[in-house]
Every structure is written in C-alpha cells, then in structure tokens.
C-alpha cells in the first residue's frame, strides 16, 4: 500500500524560517534511510501559504483567494509518499523522523484502484 505522510505547518514554517543546519542534516539522514529501505516514492517541502492561492467554487462562481491562510494547524508544509506493507509499518517509520518540537504529522492511506472497485461493487 501507499501512504501520504503530511507534515503540518507551524508558525516557523509559515514565516518562511529555514530549519536549522542540524535539523536539515538529521532530516537528510532520515530520508537516506527511507531511500535505502526502498520505500520512499516521493517527497517535497512546500513554500509557506503566503505564496499559495486558493480557488473557491460556489454555484457557478469561482473566487481566487490569495495566501497566507490563517488556520496554521490545517496547513501542510511538506509531504512524503511511502510504499509500506501496513499502516503499522508507516507509523514505525514515522516515529524515527527527527521531529520533536510539537509538530503533528499525519499518515493517510492512498486510494488504490482495488479500493474503488470495492466501493463501486
């Protein structure tokens, strides 16, 4: 199965503060481990929401909203796509990530065609 791992935004990431050298090095080491385990499919970090835009769809009306967006905890600052055997394995990998400052990181299984088939009967 594949999972999307969502790293939530923080005040720092929203202010565009660059992570410390130590954190960058540790994150690099962690990513290396993921690559060596053959399970990292994709990964990227995102610019703060001040550089983002939203498009809102109402009845036939489309409104473009410029960032920044306020609800920091709901914003995404980066993501990984992993290939794992189970959610438990994803959790075990995530526990090894070098976070520790109150970050909240979310793991969501990605829909596969087989899931759609099941739902469509």
């Amino acid at each position, binding site marked *: 199965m594949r999972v999307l791992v969502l790293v939530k935004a923080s005040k720092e990431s929203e202010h565009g503060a660059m992570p410390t050298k130590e954190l960058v090095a540790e994150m690099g080491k962690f990513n290396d481990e993921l690559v060596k385990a053959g399970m990292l499919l994709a990964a990227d970090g995102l610019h703060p929401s001040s550089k983002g835009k939203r498009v809102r769809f109402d009845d036939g009306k489309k409104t473009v909203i410029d960032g920044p967006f306020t609800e920091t905890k709901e914003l995404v600052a980066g993501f990984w796509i992993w*290939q794992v055997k189970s959610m438990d394995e994803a959790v075990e990998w995530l526990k090894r990530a070098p976070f520790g400052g109150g970050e909240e990181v979310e793991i969501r299984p990605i829909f596969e065609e087989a899931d759609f088939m099941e739902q469509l009967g």
Partner: protein
Amino acid sequence: MSVAVTAATDIHRTIDAVWRIESAKLIGALTRIVRDVGIAEDLAQDALVAALQQWPEEGVPDKPGAWLMSTAKHRAIDLLRRHALFERKQEELGREVELRLEQPDPVDALDDPVGDDLLRLIFIACHPILSTEARVALTLRLLGGLTTDEIARAFLVPEPTVAQRIVRAKRTLAEAQVPFEVPRDLEARLESVLEVIYLIFNEGYSALRPELCDDALRLGRIMAELVPDESEVHGLIALMEIQASRFNTRTGPSGELVPLLEQDRRRWDYLLVGRGLAALARAGDAHGPYVLQASIAACHARARTAAETDWERIASLYETLVEITRSPVVELNRAVAVGMARGPAAGLEIVDELMSEPALQSYHFLPAARGDLLSKLGRLDEAREEFERAAGLTRNARERELLLQRAGNSGSEERRKRSGI
C-alpha cells in the same frame, strides 16, 4: 480487560512492523559475527521472541531497532564465547574468535557503517549453488522480511515445501562454507541477484499479485543504493517501475488480458512511470539487457497514444538486444516492432526466417505474431490458421480465448469476397 487486550495486540502489530523494517539488517549483522546465515536467523528470531516477552510489560523501547540489534548481538557473542570455551576444552585454538572478543567493546566494534552486511546477505541468498526456487524463497525471507507462510501463499505452493526449501538452502550454504563477503566477480554474481528480483516481480505480474511486485521493487531499490554504480540495477528498476505502472490496465473487467496497445493510458500510474524514467536516466549510456528492455518499455511509456509510439527506435533497441542475447524470442519481438515501423511485409520477412527456429517450435507467440502480420496484409485464411495454431500452443486460458477470438474475426476470405467486404 478489553483495554489491556487491545494494548497487547497493538504492541504485537508494532513488533511485526519493527521486524519488517529491521530483520534484514539484523540477520546481516549477525551473519557477519557467527558466519552462518541459519544460526544468524535463529538468533534474530530469539531477539524477536525476547521483544514479544518484554515489550508488552515494559513498553516499546525508544529505539526498537537498536534494542533488537543489541539483544541479538549479545546473544551472538554469548554463543561465540561458549563455542570458544568448548574449543579450548578440546585444546583447539579458536584464535579467530578470541581475537574478535579481545576488542574493547565487541558490540560496538561489530557495527557496520557502510551497509555492506545487507549486500553480503543478498549475495548469499542469491548464491549460484542454490536452486532458483531456493534463491527466491531465501531472498524473500531474509531480505524481504516475509514469513514462510506469506511466501507459500504468494507462489501457491504448500507452506512445508517453502519451509523445506529454506532449511535445505541454509544447510547447503553452511556445508559449502560460502563466505560472507561481497564477491570479487561482482558483475557476474549481480546477474544472479537481478534475475531473482525480476523473477519475483514477474511472478507477481503474471499472477496478478501486486504485493509481490512491490516486494521485488523494494528489493531492487535497496540493491540500487548498495551498488549505485551498476547500470544494470537501475535498468532493472526502470523496467519494473514502468511495467508496474500498467498493472491495473493490463486486465479487463472480467480478468481478460488487454494488450499493451489497447490499454487505457490515462490509467497508467504516472508516479511509477516518472520513477522508471528517472531510474533509466541514472543508468546512463550503458547498454546491458535490462537497460535495453527498460528503454523499450520507456518508449511505450512516453507515447501518449499507441499511435505515437516510436517504433523505429524500439526496433533498433531490439536489434541491439538481439546482438547481446542472441535470443530468437527477442528477434521475434524485433520483427513485430519492424512490422509496426516499416509495414507488415517487412515484419513478416523476419518472422518467416524464424519459422524453422527449433527453440520457437512450441512458442505460441510466433504463430500469433505471424497471424497478426498476415491479417494486416489481408491474407486472412493464413492468418486464421496461425491464430488457431497459437491458441493450441498457449497454456494460458485467457490468452487462448483472445487468440480464438482473433481467429474468428479473421473469418474466411472467400466468404468476405462473396459478401463484398
């Protein structure tokens, strides 16, 4: 009570997950210490049992992988000590063991900074003295972290058969005293490793078991990081990623096979296509058999519609592949590509030369390809005969169905002429 039960199953699932992540590294490190892959696996299992006993009571340690590793290493060293003691009693020297124990902290000294243990373990699991089946089973077990039962289910063989294969393989390795090392003839031995990985992939691909394809892909990617300068590893990964991108489109709603050119390309998995093309780029200018096959797969992957396929390039890649492999099957594929690039008559010319090839006498794809070219040339009676012959040769029921359907569609020239089609 129910809370306690939930907590216990949670911990067991955590331990399962930790095992999947750590087992290959554990077994690799232990094999380096005890020099026997069977004993190493037993020691790793012992550490797992210790975790199953202690973690539910004491909680999961902060670094579960390090916990397993140090538990297992201490057991390995105990074993060596007992062995050394025994040897001394026998008035033998056991110098090698003593030397290793003289180091200040044997556990720290036994660390493996460059990941060579994993590479050595792969080469042992895929050692040429083992049968292909044994290599596949041992690789999935030691490197893929699969249980014997999971391997049995993936290959539709009884579990005791797989267990036997693994036991026998370990015994063969021990008896032959196969050294735990990165072989000097790396390229020749790499071939065997890549073959095993591709075999696992193909089993998953043809038997529609995506999990097995995922296992093969993961093993391939691990290998690519261990020997990043070997172009064929990247070629194999590229080939597997691109093939896997078509996993969902290669069968229809009732399980029938859908040929590549008729697949719905919008449903290909473009994350995997992108990864495949990137792996191919990493392979560089080398032209080994996996790189060539991946380049051919990439031609299809890059074409947004079947009509946009660069058949000239595919034909020339097959030509190079024929030069390397001297395989009549590859030559037949070249004929098909030439038929697409330069017209059915040009393709048929090559196919006709292959008709007397002994290796292809019972290969259904030969009459199937010939039938296809003949039908494009309007020689429908001959085409029908070839499709029928092909249907009689294939052992795959879905393929037979497809071929008989094509035979029916080819109809009779006479009838068509009379009805004015």
